[in-house]
């Protein structure tokens, strides 16, 4: 029941039997893609909600934690992704105009940008991993203290952190007042105590006593979930690009059939769009 026509310029052009026209088929698939993008927005919306709540309630965590991220790598990654979005939009144009070799080339560039993005992300992740800036219970506070003193105040101050015993006791006393919400089991209580102690370590910095805020790991929990889910979407997009490249080089696409490239482009752009918001929210906190 399907009709298949077309030449090299037009691409393989087929109409499913339950549609009346190519236009109806194209618009149906496009609408479906947009609906799918809506679900993506809502799914990330949940994470943005978690972000907003914690940032509103604990701005000090975010203010401090973002200094542990590399702003430059984030900016480079933003530009890489924006460039890939540009080449993807160009690829859609090429598909519409039946420029087959240009289409393949642009899709390959887009895919390479995807690799670049994930590579830079990998560098960032491995840095966090090395220093123990991880989520929840994996967060390494002693390392964070050492890192902060080393980075923020020069190596000469690193040794001083050891002399803060008296201060630390005072601070710890304050912190243990916090009701241990579910300190029912011993593990949780132990973690709480450990965190309080670590958080209470202060560093002398000239006149100011700078300190690591409590529950710093919350930021990294959100950071890893948001960038991780985004990264999974980039990987999925790269898989899709590979599939498009194979089909494009086979000559499937042309002026009469560019739906797959167009819809793939929409997906790639939404992944870019989400990063456009993630970058300032995670890396550029003032």
């Amino acid at each position, binding site marked *: 029941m399907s009709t298949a026509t077309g030449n090299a310029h037009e691409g393989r052009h087929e109409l499913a039997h339950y549609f009346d026209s190519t236009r109806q088929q194209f618009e149906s698939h496009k*609408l479906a893609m947009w609906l799918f993008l809506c679900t993506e927005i809502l799914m990330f919306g949940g994470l943005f909600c*978690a972000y907003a709540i914690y940032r509103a309630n604990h701005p000090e965590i975010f203010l401090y934690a973002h200094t542990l991220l590399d702003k430059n790598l984030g900016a480079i990654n933003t530009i890489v992704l924006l460039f890939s979005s540009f080449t993807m939009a160009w690829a859609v144009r090429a598909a519409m105009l039946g420029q087959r070799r240009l289409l393949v080339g642009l899709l390959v560039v887009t895919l390479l940008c995807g690799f670049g993005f994930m590579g830079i992300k990998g560098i960032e992740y491995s840095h966090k991993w090395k220093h123990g800036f991880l989520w929840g219970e994996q967060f390494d506070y002693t390392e964070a203290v050492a890192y902060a003193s080393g980075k923020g105040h020069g190596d000469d101050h690193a040794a001083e952190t050891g002399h803060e015993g008296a201060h630390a006791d005072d601070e710890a006393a304050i912190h243990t007042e916090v009701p241990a919400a579910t300190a029912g089991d011993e593990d949780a209580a132990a973690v709480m105590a450990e965190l309080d102690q670590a958080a209470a370590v202060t560093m002398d910095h000239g006149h100011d006593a700078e300190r690591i805020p409590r529950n710093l790991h919350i930021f990294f929990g959100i950071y890893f979930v948001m960038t991780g889910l985004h990264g999974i979407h980039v990987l999925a997009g790269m898989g899709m690009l590979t599939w498009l490249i194979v089909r494009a080089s086979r000559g499937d696409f042309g002026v009469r059939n560019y739906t797959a490239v167009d819809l793939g482009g929409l997906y790639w752009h939404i992944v870019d769009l989400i990063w456009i918001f993630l970058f300032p929210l995670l890396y550029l906190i003032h």
Partner: protein
Amino acid sequence: MSTGATTTVDHVDGHDHHEGNYLTAGRGLRSWLFTLDHKRIGVMYLGTILFAFLLGGIFALLVRTELLTPQQTIMSADDYNRMFTLHGAIMTFLFIIPGIPAALGNFILPLMLGAKDVALPRLNLASYHIYVIGSLMAVASILAGGVDTGWTFYTPYSTTTNGAVILVTLSVFVLGFSSIFTGINFIVTVHRMRPAGMGWFQMPLMLWALYATAIIQVLATPVLAITVLLIIAERALGIGIFDPALGGDPVLFQHFFWFYSHPAVYIMILPAMGVISELVAIFSRKPIFGYKAIAYSSIAIAVFSFLVWGHHMFVSGQSELAVVIFSALTFSVSIPSAVKVFNWLSTMYRGAIRLETPMVYALVFIFLFGIGGLTGLFLASLATDVHLHDSYFVVAHFHYTMMGGTMIAFLAGIYHWWPKMFGKMFSQKWGNIGAIVIFVGFNVTFFSQFVMGAKGMPRRYFNYPPEFEIYHVMSSIGSYVLAIGLFIAAGVLVHSLIAGKKAPVNPWGGATLEWQAASPPIHHNFDSPLLLTNPYDYTAQRWDEAEQGYVPVDPEKEPQTT
């Protein structure tokens, strides 16, 4: 997602169907499991969903049996916790949410549009396969130790308890995709596959209801997906977002969960309302009263459903400001719901009501949903909710709306479209007997729960003070009667498959397009030109004794009669 444009869309079971209907169009298991035919997918959904219903029902009966005595009756307290959790999770995610849209909707939506299929048949099939995988995961969790969190998976309990929480939440994640795919498919189909001449306000109201449902499915379900992913991350990695021991916020989990799960109750009830809108008009032989009001109220319910999730959190430590706002918004949802009920009643007023089995179920629906809706007002009021929250009153309320509403409408819809699906007529007499037994059993089961809830019996408790025993015994006995009624209802349908009379094209006198297709329809739905009329105009058809069904009036031969 971006497939379909260039790949050949053929039916697996071949091209040519000169004779036979969709049931006989292809043979063998493969022709069913990999079919792209929306009718077959709908029938497979129906079978699987009914199986899930049976499973959830067995758990319900076990729970009710356990509660016959104030102490342990047949199982340990831990097993009891797992039982009611699985009952809730299976009934919610495997039965009620996909029930009407995926099973009946899949079958009926393209037929009502006069289309050959849904807009995205591959996505439709994927939705079914994903549903089966998710269901198997949910069932596998029983073997993997079960879950005792309740179907709501509240943190921090769900992140600390033992059991197969990861498996069950993962299955919820997977089932969510199935629901999203159905929703996307229906929206696209309604937008792009309407025939020339069928504008938005010439659509049957069932389609409005399915459309409104699909909007909720697409917008709310992804939030559930991220919620359960965070639960999994919490358990597997200790991510700390919902865990107060790590500085997380457990109330945030409830916001997340109910942002999906409150709209989800409208995913359950809206299609049910659509079914009732069709049935009330057809069996009263009167055009539906207030077509536009019913259509708009479906959309209004879909919009309002996103504004009221906080009423599940009145005693969760939500702020007073939010509580007041949510309470006021919750009351406002009753407006579009009541609009529908009044319109159904007005449709029936002075109509030629025929008490055929689908209509009996529709009347049961209106009565039970009325009680369910009105008791919701007690729960929306802040002061009374503090007393009634987490009591059996809540349990009774949502069973009156979910079971008395959605399940009854589901049965009504199955009976209504059964002749179209399988081409067989069932015994009206036994169908009605089944409906009445269900009605009696249902009320005995759940009305007693209103009473004990108001008297202070908390839900989900294993042991209870002896003064509640009489109500629990009543409720349990009622549940057995209910089960008998459901078996009668199922028996009537099975019997019709074996010994039922052949169904005419239009047994009930419906004016929507599906009643112009053969019973059962051919593979591509319609074999003759369609007459597109007002879906609620019953003047152009008459009862034909020889046909045992309704036939179009031939204006040249005879004058129009009603």
